[in-house]
């Protein structure tokens, strides 16, 4: 088994990841000020910047969805039960005895089953919950006589509860995500991969998949 530097995260993917990370951290920071937890920017600015960052995030996510659909990368996130138990076992037991990762990371399958499940949940449930409740929050109209009754939401509380719930779930994800970054081959290998795009992967596969990874690498190279 040899090891090889593989180009695993493409340019847009990395840009999208870091931009999204920045925006979500900023949204959390301003969001909890709006929520009344602390005072830093001042309420008015916290609201203004929070709304601005929200629009930027939506814009970014629209691009990301387009990218995932056109490149076919969306298939990476289809959840699977295969190997899920082994992956869980690894985090609970194997990791302490320096056992090998149960899932092989390849360009075609760069997510382990737990990641698939988590990111799928993030993309299908938490982010939409956050964005939909956030948009309702922005466009919430207090009950007025001029409004259309059918689309009047009678209380902002209903919207706010879901928005807060999404925020709490995102924080939980963020904490665990930050920690699991350190569980790669070395403590920083995952972080380095997301920064540079390259990761040292085990090269024990048949020639075919190796060629494929070379292909994708060269195809992105051509873009440059």
């Amino acid at each position, binding site marked *: 088994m040899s090891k090889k530097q593989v180009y695993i995260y493409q340019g847009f993917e990395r840009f999208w990841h870091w931009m999204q990370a920045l925006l979500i951290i900023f949204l959390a920071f301003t969001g909890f000020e709006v929520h009344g937890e602390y005072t830093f920017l001042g309420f008015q600015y916290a609201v203004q910047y929070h709304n601005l960052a929200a629009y930027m995030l939506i814009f970014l996510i629209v691009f990301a969805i387009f990218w995932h659909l056109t490149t076919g990368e969306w298939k990476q996130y289809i959840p699977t039960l295969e190997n899920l138990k082994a992956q869980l076992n690894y985090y609970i037991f194997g990791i*302490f005895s320096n056992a090998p990762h149960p899932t092989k990371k390849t360009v075609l399958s760069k997510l382990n089953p737990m990641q698939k499940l988590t990111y799928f949940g993030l993309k299908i449930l938490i982010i939409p919950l956050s964005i939909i409740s956030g948009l309702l929050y922005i466009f919430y*109209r207090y009950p007025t006589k001029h409004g259309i009754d059918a689309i009047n939401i009678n209380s902002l509380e209903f919207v706010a509860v879901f928005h807060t719930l999404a925020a709490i779930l995102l924080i939980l994800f963020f904490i*665990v995500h930050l920690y699991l970054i350190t569980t790669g081959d070395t403590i920083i290998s995952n972080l380095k991969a997301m920064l540079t795009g390259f990761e040292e992967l085990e090269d024990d596969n048949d020639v075919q998949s190796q060629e494929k990874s070379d292909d994708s690498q060269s195809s992105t190279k051509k873009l440059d």
Partner: protein
Amino acid sequence: MKKIILILIFSSLLVVIAIGILAQKDYEPTKLMKLKEKYSKKEEPQVDHSKFAILQEKFSSPQQVTAACVTCHNLTAQHVMEGNHWNWEREEYVKGRGIVYLGKKNALNNFCIGTHGNELSCAKCHIGYGMDITGKIFIDKKNIDCLICHDVTETYAKAQEKAGFPVATLDLNKIAQDVGKPKRTNCGVCHFYGGGGNNVKHGDLEMAMFEPSKDIDIHMASDGMNLQCVDCHLTNQHSISGKVYSLSSMSLNRNTCEQCHTETPHDTNILNEHSIKVACQSCHIPVYAKGNATKMYWDWSTAGKLKDGEPFSEEDSLGNHTYLSIKGNFTWEKNVKPDYIWFNGTASHYLKGDIIQDTSKIFVLNQLHGSYADDESKIIPVKIHLAKQPYDPVNRMLIQPKLFAENKGEGAFWKDFDWLSATEVGMKESNLPFSGKISFMETAMYWPVNHMVSPASESVDCIECHTRDNSRIAGLNDFYIPGRDHYASLEAIGKWLIILAILGVFVHSAIRIYAYGKLRKGTKQ
């Protein structure tokens, strides 16, 4: 290379969007400028009254002046006599009561309580001449006092307790020749002193408004736009717009900020959206009673104490009465933060003879209606005036005492200091029963605060309402607002989950470090 360009394009797109949203939208930057321009042009009088021959004939009584006025203004007297300045009442529809002629004759307040039996004293502010103790309304148009509103020399004045007649020494010819559109002084001479002294009642209308600074009132500031009362309180055939909810029940003929400033006066949408549910005054009048203190509490139960058989008074450090034998104890406050309530423009009032079901709670004399769910309601600032005032515990009715009389022995409290006789006479004059028992109960009145608008830079900051602690609208609990409200149980669960996650991370990494240490030792050996 292409990738870098793509990233650059994408980033610059984001920046463009950011700038677009951040930039303040100045669709109509001249809205306020236009208003300032409009009101900086002062109206010139259309006629010179001093040239009219009829005003040069020697006047020996104020009625002669009125007779002269109506020779030219031949429809005006009728208009005046239809208005509430003349009639002391408004025709109002009140839910549950039907049509009520609401006025000082039938509504009680918690200041000097009511007018019945006190007419000679009260007539100082009535715009008629010769009002007598029966309080009957005159139909003779010569009894209209034109000058109290239209004298612009600032010399005309009504005499104390003379049934509305002016001070005897005035040069009526000179005054009559110099009449014009009412100024702040004309309105203020009555409206600033309601309740028996400066700023007793409103809190936002007081003698500091005669020549206010911009800090006191941005509109009326004599060094600023110098608006007069009638610039906003527009008048059509002597019917004046705007009214106070101590004596109004319907949402009609109200004066609003929007009539000049429109419903979308701000540059930012988020502030304009607030105006759906928040009245302009709520943010733009951060405090009232800016010039002089206003009366917040009146305790009638202590009235009547005498020193050596004589009435006396006590004052606080600001020179406000804290005790008067004729009225009891007072509390005054200056620079008061308003209370906030929902208000849809309708109100219900305690009328003389109404029976109070629960006398243990603070009883509201003018209940202002409104709620979050009501789409006509907005949050408005109010002054809440509390009082302890006499009531009949057997009949469960508020008492209308006779307070003023010219002589001792007529039963007036202000002369005889005897609650029993004052109540007997007052209730009899009001045709109401009296059991012979007097108690004191707590009452409240709501006074919407509409004046003393501050410069925009001093308006209430977002955080003063959108905050967990001491929110200005902490008392309004029928809706959710960001920053003030949160869902405690959800947050408790969230906090614990986050703590657990962090603990999990620490435990997991500790075991990892320990296990790796052990492994490394193992490989070394």
